[in-house]
């Protein structure tokens, strides 16, 4: 299985990427550990997670094709 991870705002700069695919991740907490492994800097930033465009604070299970976004506090307007 493969999921798509989007990095927004300052996190795109910190990670050096806007999009990265991850394979064989079970859950959001599992994914977060993998992301922290790849980009240790990210741990210092405040962000929320969305799964398929919906914000969640829960540790949901992931399935192939899921789109996860790492979103710093919004700053529109």
């Amino acid at each position, binding site marked *: 299985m493969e999921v798509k991870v989007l990095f*927004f705002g300052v996190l795109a700069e910190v990670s050096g990427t806007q999009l990265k695919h991850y394979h064989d991740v079970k859950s959001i907490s599992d994914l977060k550990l993998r992301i922290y492994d790849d980009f240790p800097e990210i741990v210092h930033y405040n962000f929320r997670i969305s799964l398929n465009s919906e914000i969640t604070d829960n540790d949901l299970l992931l399935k192939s094709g899921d789109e996860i976004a790492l979103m710093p506090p919004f*700053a529109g307007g």
Partner: protein
Amino acid sequence: METNYLTAGPVSQKLISQLVEKMSHNTDSGGHSIFLGQVRADEIDGKSVKAIEYSAYVEMVNIEAENIKKKILSEFPDVKSVDIIHSTGIVSAGEISLLVFISAGHRHQAIQACSKTVELIKDNLPVWKKEIFEDDSHKWK
């Protein structure tokens, strides 16, 4: 990635005029309340902001903007229409980055709905901004 809510670069005078023009065909509207967000040339640590670069999670902006629209229309029954346009990409100081355009039968709901829409946008639209200074350094907000 179609969207009715995002525009590349500043919200143009032309876009604003078109909306005003369009609204006037609605002869049961008695008031339009409009908010325009503009990029300020703020001074931060002695450096002046020359532009803001906006980025957005496009699919989610569409979903959230639809939600805001529905919320406003259900909360303010006198409101006839809600238009929201936010910039993506570079917007220079003095240019418009956000337009909210509410038409209603009467002024009170037009004004209240506009104010509430702006707050909901600030809280819920997945948009990020990077202030770009005169020396091309930048700062995330």
